[in-house]
């Protein structure tokens, strides 16, 4: 720790940081633009000028940029110094010369860092009366608006998009007063993290296009802390609602998981919540027709689904509460997994590895600290995008190490990057096709899944001779093994999406071999595809597979089925599901969007979506997180657990407490519940900001009398702007706001220190305790007989593979049809061209041919679209043939992969 004096007051600070960061950590106000807590300093904007004095006798001092000056012990600085203040005012005046002052029509208005900093700097009178520089804006795709005239050239956009997120299609163009930030030509911004530009840009150059279409000022949005349901990472988000519709999602800081950034699936994948297609009312089959049943008369039908002969199928996209309520209703013995049998087997292995003391499940922040990484078979950018972004930071650890050797502070972003050039920490990717992370990989091995598992085993054997012996002709094996062995914090990543349990076993063997050579637990990150795959799998007994449930239905052993928020046609071969559902006497489906499964229901009950209920989910690490209700559902949907509980009026807290008591490994779940002692005099946390406007008028079209605000007796939050005022140590923060800080940058006021934990704590609870010792795994071998076709690996797309976000109209604009990626040689042999319709195994499944240069001959990567391909009907290998014209609308034009064989340009 160092001591520095700021305006006559002594502070204890971290000398490894710069003055700006330390001033902000101390809660002081100092304006800035180009500095970002996650991206360090470049000194581009000159906004954070302060006066620094040589010693106590120095009366003149000199102006320095706080972001470019280390917080050295004994520093004496002044923020309030008149010269420094004047400098900051003049700087912002010049930055603002061509700014259009269009705040009333700008989407950033009211949460604009530029507005905040302008006020803070005291520049409130514009002297420049000449012509302003104007720019032509670009079409940047369905996610982002472009309004270059507002730009103040802080360079944050390209520093995030290119340097941090590895984008290649946004660049600073031209120079001085006509500097332009855009693409080389109009077109879709291709990075999967482009949405973060909305928050990274300090003003309104890049704004949320989907939000613009039903825009509301930040202060008029009703918000609550939420958790993204797009994948198993569990990023924290703040959804905002107005007039009964969900308007947008922004990032909510969580030091352990997403930090300041989320992916575009998470940001833009929510608007199915507002869909007209939502299941709105309970329907019960009467004869051949589904009939509306008045709420009061539903009870007998629901009660008919209890007692023996009823089984329940769980869901990886439903909350722990709903899954647990179903388990309580049907009993352990009748509670079945809601994921495909192969995936369930992989997930059970993942859960058993999660109890193993040899390993540690790294959080996203810990993934960023890895200095040698191997990824086995997971296409992280499309399966767990936020982890892919974290890996892009992990490869920079080499640069940081080099900088430390040269005494360059790590926050000196430009210097550190310049020093390292292309030097990166090792990242080895073993995959069945080229991935979007390959550009920062030190080794990429592209092969069939089985071959990859063997290479993984060979790496484990190379690291430790106690590992099962294995050899591989792959030349990188020795190198990768050595890199992992020599690393300070090696990381092994695999997961269940590849569909190969052998790859998970190989990954565990590599980590175990590393563990043998070192005393510490090895970071083993095992990724699963959906938000609550882990939570669901923890609740289901290991032998209760979906296949066995469907078999029981088909054999008539059981006749009644409850399906919880799940489309079984995404989990098993359509024929098998059909046979089982057709045989069942009664099928209750609880869901919020129509699916192939809801079409088979004899009793269909509407449930609420993620933003309409309070719920907990367990992420890939086994971290349980609480997500609050943001807004009410105006139809008759209620949380699925309520339909399934006998006490329809019970509250979610009681259910969470019961789950913590009864379900194995869930005992820490109730720690997530807010401590009621923190709430003064019964005051609740308002979901609406203190500036929330129009409450008396917003329903005037229906009735001129202002209705009573709905009472929320379920939650510590209220549907109101009244209650506990937002303060820096508020136990619950939906939308960050602090006096003078209206933008998301106000988060610094809620952090213990910059980039530290929030003062409120709460980064979730790690549920699974490690208390078992395991041993090396024998690799499962694939027994599927080859039928002479291509060996298939399943491919994923960030926009389309997730069931719910694929129902969002914003995401749909970026989706492609199902495709099958094959090598040029196989394409030649089969007479297929890019974009041809291909039939798979000749059984009616159609996909588009996508010829990729980096895929092994004899293998294919199959992307199933939004469940357009009945993947479980296909074997481990598939034969392809040209299909007649099919009814495919989207094609693969929007596909963004790194190696399309026929050049798009």
């Amino acid at each position: 720790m160092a001591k520095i004096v700021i305006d006559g007051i002594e502070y204890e600070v971290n000398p490894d940081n710069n003055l700006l960061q330390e001033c902000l950590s101390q809660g002081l106000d100092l304006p800035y633009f180009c500095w970002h807590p996650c991206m360090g300093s470049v000194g581009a904007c000159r906004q954070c000028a302060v006066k620094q004095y040589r010693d106590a006798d120095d009366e003149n001092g000199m102006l320095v940029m706080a972001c470019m000056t280390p917080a050295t012990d004994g520093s004496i600085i002044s923020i309030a110094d008149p010269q420094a203040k004047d400098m900051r005012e003049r700087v912002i005046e010049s930055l603002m010369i061509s700014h259009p002052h269009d705040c009333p029509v700008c989407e950033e208005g009211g949460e604009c860092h530029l507005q905040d900093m302008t006020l803070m700097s005291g520049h409130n009178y514009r002297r420049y009366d000449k012509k302003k520089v104007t720019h032509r804006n670009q079409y940047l795709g369905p996610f982002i608006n472009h309004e270059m005239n507002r730009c103040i050239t802080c360079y944050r956009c390209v520093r995030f998009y290119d340097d941090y997120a590895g984008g290649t299609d946004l660049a600073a163009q031209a120079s001085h007063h006509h500097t332009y930030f855009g693409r080389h030509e109009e077109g879709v911004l291709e990075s999967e993290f482009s949405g973060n530009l909305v928050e990274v840009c300090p003003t309104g150059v890049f704004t949320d296009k989907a939000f613009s279409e039903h825009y509301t000022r930040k202060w008029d949005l009703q918000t609550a802390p939420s958790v993204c349901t797009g994948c198993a990472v569990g990023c924290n988000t703040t959804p905002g609602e107005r007039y009964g519709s969900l308007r947008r999602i922004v990032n909510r800081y969580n030091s352990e998981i997403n930090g300041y950034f989320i992916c575009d699936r998470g940001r833009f994948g929510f608007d199915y919540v507002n869909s007209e297609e939502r299941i709105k009312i309970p329907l019960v089959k009467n004869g051949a027709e589904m009939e509306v049943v008045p709420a009061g008369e539903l009870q007998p039908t629901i009660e008919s689904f209890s007692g023996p002969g009823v089984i329940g199928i769980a869901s990886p996209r439903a909350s722990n509460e709903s899954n647990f309520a179903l388990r309580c209703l049907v009993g352990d013995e009748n509670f079945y997994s809601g994921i495909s049998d192969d995936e369930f087997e992989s997930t059970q292995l993942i859960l058993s590895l999660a109890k193993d003391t040899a390993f540690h499940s790294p959080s996203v922040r810990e993934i960023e600290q890895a200095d040698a990484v191997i990824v086995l078979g997971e296409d992280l950018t499309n399966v767990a995008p936020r982890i892919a972004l974290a890996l892009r930071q992990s490869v920079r650890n080499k640069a940081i190490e080099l900088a430390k050797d040269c005494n360059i502070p790590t926050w000196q972003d430009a210097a550190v990057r310049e020093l390292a050039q292309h030097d990166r920490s090792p990242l080895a990717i073993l995959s069945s096709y080229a991935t979007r992370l390959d550009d920062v990989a030190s080794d990429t091995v592209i092969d069939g899944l089985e071959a990859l598992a063997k290479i993984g085993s060979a790496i484990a054997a190379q690291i430790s001779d106690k590992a099962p012996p294995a050899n591989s002709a792959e030349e990188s094996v020795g190198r990768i093994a050595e890199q992992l062995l020599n690393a300070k914090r090696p990381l092994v990543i695999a997961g269940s999406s590849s569909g190969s349990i052998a790859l998970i076993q190989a990954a565990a063997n590599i980590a175990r071999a590393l563990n043998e050579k070192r005393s510490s637990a090895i970071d083993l990150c095992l990724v699963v595809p959906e938000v609550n795959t882990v939570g669901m799998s923890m609740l289901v007994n290991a032998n209760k597979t979906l296949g066995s449930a469907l078999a029981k239905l088909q054999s008539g052993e059981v006749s009644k089925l409850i399906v919880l928020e799940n489309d079984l046609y995404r989990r098993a071969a359509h024929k098998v599901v059909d046979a089982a559902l057709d045989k069942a006497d009664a099928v209750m489906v609880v869901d919020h969007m129509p699916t192939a499964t809801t079409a088979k229901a004899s009793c269909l009950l509407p449930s609420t979506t993620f933003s309409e209920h309070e719920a907990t989910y367990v992420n890939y690490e086994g971290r349980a997180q609480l997500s609050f209700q943001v807004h009410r559902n105006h139809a008759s949907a209620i949380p699925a657990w309520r339909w399934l509980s006998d006490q329809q009026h019970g509250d979610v807290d009681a259910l969470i407490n019961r789950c913590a008591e009864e379900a194995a490994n869930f005992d820490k779940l109730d720690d997530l519940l807010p401590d009621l002692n923190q709430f003064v005099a019964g005051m609740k946390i308002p979901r609406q900001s203190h500036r929330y406007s129009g409450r008396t008028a917003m329903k005037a079209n229906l009735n001129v009398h202002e209705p009573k605000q709905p009472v929320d007796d379920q939650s510590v939050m209220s549907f109101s702007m009244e209650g506990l005022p937002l303060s820096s140590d508020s136990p619950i923060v939906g939308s960050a706001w602090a006096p003078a800080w209206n933008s998301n940058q106000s988060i610094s006021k809620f952090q213990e220190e910059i980039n530290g934990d929030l003062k409120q704590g709460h980064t979730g609870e790690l549920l699974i305790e490690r208390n078992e010792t395991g041993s090396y795994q024998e690799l499962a071998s694939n027994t599927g007989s080859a039928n002479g076709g291509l060996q298939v690996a399943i491919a994923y797309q960030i926009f389309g593979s997730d069931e719910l976000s694929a129902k969002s109209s914003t995401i749909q604009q970026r989706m492609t049809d199902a495709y099958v990626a094959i090598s040029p040689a196989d394409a030649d042999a089969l007479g297929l061209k890019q974009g041809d319709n291909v039939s798979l195994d000749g059984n009616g499944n159609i996909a588009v041919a996508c010829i990729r240069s980096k895929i092994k001959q004899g293998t294919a990567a199959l992307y199933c679209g939004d469940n357009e391909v009945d993947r479980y009907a296909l074997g481990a290998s598939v034969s392809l043939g040209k299909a007649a014209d099919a009814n495919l609308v989207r094609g693969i034009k929007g596909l963004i992969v790194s190696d399309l064989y026929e050049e798009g340009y």
Partner: protein
Amino acid sequence: MSTNIIASTATKARPLTAAEISEIEHEMELYPDKQAVGLEALKIVQKHQGWVSDESMLAISKFLDIPVADLESVATFFNLVYRQPVGKNVILFCNSVSCWIMGCDGLRSHINDQLGVDFGDTTEDEAFTFIPVPCLGDCDRAPVMMVGDDLHRNLTEEKIDQIVADYRNKE
């Protein structure tokens, strides 16, 4: 086919000529990585084609396997990388301090009258493009301008007429 660059663009790359490729390959030997060759490649293509079209830009991007956005960034940073077609002869006309003191404004109007073009324009016959530059480093002989690779000093209206006529006659 390339590794890093993403393929959504409306424009197609043109093939680079053998001469362009051999010169770019020569430059590649002189630099540590392909990124650094970007500017040289732009200069080479401009030397051969007169300017850098979108198709040329994509061709370089593909050849060097660097993002086209990065190339555009470099190309637009430097005024003398032409992203629009220019005339056969480019007049780089200094309008900086020394030349201004020596009366370049009058000469600018003279060229304007004679050729019918102002800064940024190309004559209809595509013989000349008229562009300002901040300094040509020959202030003691101001006013100065460059036409193609030749520097012309101590300019007067008569001298300019002669120079223009000379370049016209060269054709």
